[in-house]
């Protein structure tokens, strides 16, 4: 069946999230390859359709419905979490957030056995196993395709902010990477990663994408691993660079930060300077490497500033939007996180300092997931 580029329409603005989670062996604290058994056990429960497999068998993805206000999203996520935790308890498996598992070996991972992931393995070989990283995808509804394309580019400037706020992958393959977010390097290896094309008109974008299909480069939008991409079948823009936070609350906070920001950008409709993409990858890199203290180039004001300062500045502008989406508490927590330069990566490093073992870091990740 041909892939439809018809842009789904929503009556109201909303936001939804996908969250990729880690399944943990409670004896070794390494990843455990039991997602297929986990999904089988969830059949017939209320959350059956909200949980999906991910590329390798130690990953699970939870999907929320679209929401207009903060509390309803948080409530839904908490219900999903409670059901997941119950199943995990019976299976003697742990669940946690964070963008990477600190010491899993990618070669020990097994690809989930379904057509899509087997096809991915056929195309990308070992990259699929290296893709055992855990992200949060934020879907923000748009009125039409043109709005979605505008938002894709308007949000590009704020990608470093979202990376720094959500960064929770300082450890990878058993070492402290010195990055706050080491997960992005796993994504960059794919040929269709990067940014969407400089197109603002949906009809033109349809033509562009049709060319990709004709050239056998992509079949659906899912094949494009851009940092932000339009999702016509959902009527949304999908932000894909956020690390899975350590708690449900943080995930909801970041989702509403992105949502309020999007509403602000769509309302302001400032002209977007193409030079934005001159500094895009450098800014993105600095956010991954240095987190909230990273210096970014502001192409509009022709200066440099720390991500932290810019977030504090933006938070001020987003207050009216946060009030509207009943997410003032979330905005305040984002502000404090920036002010104190505290993201999840910093917390994870503090746990390593406290326990001196990556196994204990994973244990504390599970504990904070259960509490938060």
């Amino acid at each position, binding site marked *: 069946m041909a892939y439809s580029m018809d842009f789904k329409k929503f009556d109201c603005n909303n936001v939804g999230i996908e969250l990729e989670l880690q399944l943990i062996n*409670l*004896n070794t604290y390494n990843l455990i390859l039991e997602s297929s058994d986990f999904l089988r056990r969830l059949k017939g429960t209320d959350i059956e359709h909200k949980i999906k497999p991910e590329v390798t068998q130690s990953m699970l993805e939870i999907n929320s419905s679209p929401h207009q206000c903060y509390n309803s999203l948080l409530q839904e996520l908490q219900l999903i979490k409670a059901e997941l935790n119950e199943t995990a308890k019976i299976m003697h498996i742990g669940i946690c957030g964070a963008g990477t598992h600190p010491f899993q070996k990618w070669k020990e991972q097994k690809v989930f056995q379904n057509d899509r992931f087997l096809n991915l393995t056929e195309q990308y070989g070992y990259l699929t196993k290296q893709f055992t990283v855990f992200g949060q995808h934020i879907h923000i509804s748009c009125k039409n395709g043109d709005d979605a394309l505008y938002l894709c580019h308007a949000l590009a400037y704020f990608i470093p902010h979202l990376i720094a706020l959500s960064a929770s992958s300082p450890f990878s393959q058993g070492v402290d990477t010195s990055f706050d977010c080491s997960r992005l390097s796993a994504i960059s290896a794919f040929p269709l990663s990067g940014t969407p094309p400089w197109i603002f008109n949906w009809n033109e974008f349809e033509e562009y994408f049709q060319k990709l299909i004709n050239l056998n480069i992509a079949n659906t939008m899912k094949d494009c691993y851009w940092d932000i991409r339009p999702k016509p079948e959902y009527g949304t823009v999908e932000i894909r660079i956020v690390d899975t936070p350590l708690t449900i609350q943080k995930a909801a906070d970041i989702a509403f930060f992105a949502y309020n920001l999007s509403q602000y950008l769509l309302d302001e409709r400032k002209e977007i300077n193409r030079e934005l993409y001159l500094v895009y990858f450098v800014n993105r890199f600095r956010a991954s490497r240095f987190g909230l203290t990273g210096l970014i180039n502001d192409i509009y004001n022709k200066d440099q500033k720390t991500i932290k300062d810019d977030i504090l500045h933006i938070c001020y502008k987003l207050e009216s939007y946060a009030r509207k989406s009943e997410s003032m508490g979330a905005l305040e927590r984002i502000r404090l996180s920036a002010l104190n330069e505290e993201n999840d990566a910093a917390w994870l490093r503090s746990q390593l300092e406290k326990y001196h073992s990556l196994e*204990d870091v994973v244990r504390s990740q599970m504990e904070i997931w259960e509490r938060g």
Partner: protein
Amino acid sequence: MNYSDLTFLHPRGHLFDALTFFGVLLLICHTMGELLFKTKFIPRISGYIITGILLGPNVFNLINKSMLVDMRFFIDISVGLTLFVIGRYLDFKWLINDKGLLCTSLLEFFLTLFGIGGLVFFSGSSFIYALLAAIIISTTSPAIMVLITQDLNAVGPVSRRSLLIAATNNFLALSIFSLAFPFLKLQHAGVEYQIMYSCYRFLGSLFLGFISFKILEFLSLYIFPKRNQEQLILLIGILILASGLSQYLNLSIYLTLLSIGVATRNLDSDHGILDYNLELFTHIFFIPLFFITGCYLDFSGFIHTPLLILSCIGMRYMTKVSSVYAFRNLSFLTKQQAIYIGTALMPLSITAISITTIASDLNPELGSRLLAITSSCIGFFGIVGPIISQYVLLKSNEAFDNLKRV
């Protein structure tokens, strides 16, 4: 100058002392295991056991009893490590959270115990004889499961649950054996004395295991925090010490060591004890253990009491598989998973050999009658069990080849 002048050329001691024997044994068994493993359907363990059968008294008779006695030190370390490793798989938290698994574990052991015990008892044997035979034949070998899962890199629901059930099975078997031991050893003593001794032996072994764990925990937390290699040496020291003390105090060495493993898994609330990587250690020390199992195997029961032996084998398979199957819904297992888990429990525990030997030492008449049945069952499951277990893990798609192209 002749040869007698060149004293440095004169060998010292015996060519086949314990150390040389251990080395030769490792080389031969390991090579044999590897050759068989290359066939894809026979596990390495079978190679070790078959080497034991070939070199032992049943075929070429190259191994005599004194050689095995010389190996005692290595065997003790092997058994100690094995039981500790087994204990680490017994996770009470999991059993409490998964009621189905708890029921399965209990039913699997007791159904097999009563089934086998009943068969032996109604074939005209005494109660204590039937009980001992039932304990020995009911025990599943987690050591075989551990080695096969290591060999195949098997990970998944079937292997994890099989190991837990096997660990519970061993804990129950050793506890009952430990309680029954005084009744076997002191058959002519008063009941009150037997009960007192039984309680002392059972509770004392658990207590010694607990104290050993507390020492291990304290030293791991405060002297060797988060240092894998140092903690491993510490562990070996504790296991040897606990074995020695247990023997000195007339307690059950097996139960003591097993309970140290159980305690480290369940009572280490400060997470001071690391998850030791004992893979290499266990492999090296499991080799002589399986070799000796092979040496002791005896299939004469198939000639003298074929019906009873075949009934025991059939009963053992049926009770284990049906127990897992019975509670599969409570445990949310698929039919296939239940059958795989039940079948994976087939290997008979290597401690069965030791239990039989202990029983023989204590009561030679009872021991020889016991050996006739148990040895044949041990022989059958010793050969067939590992092959079945490996087959099941391969079928359940839990084996994993790291070298295979992605």
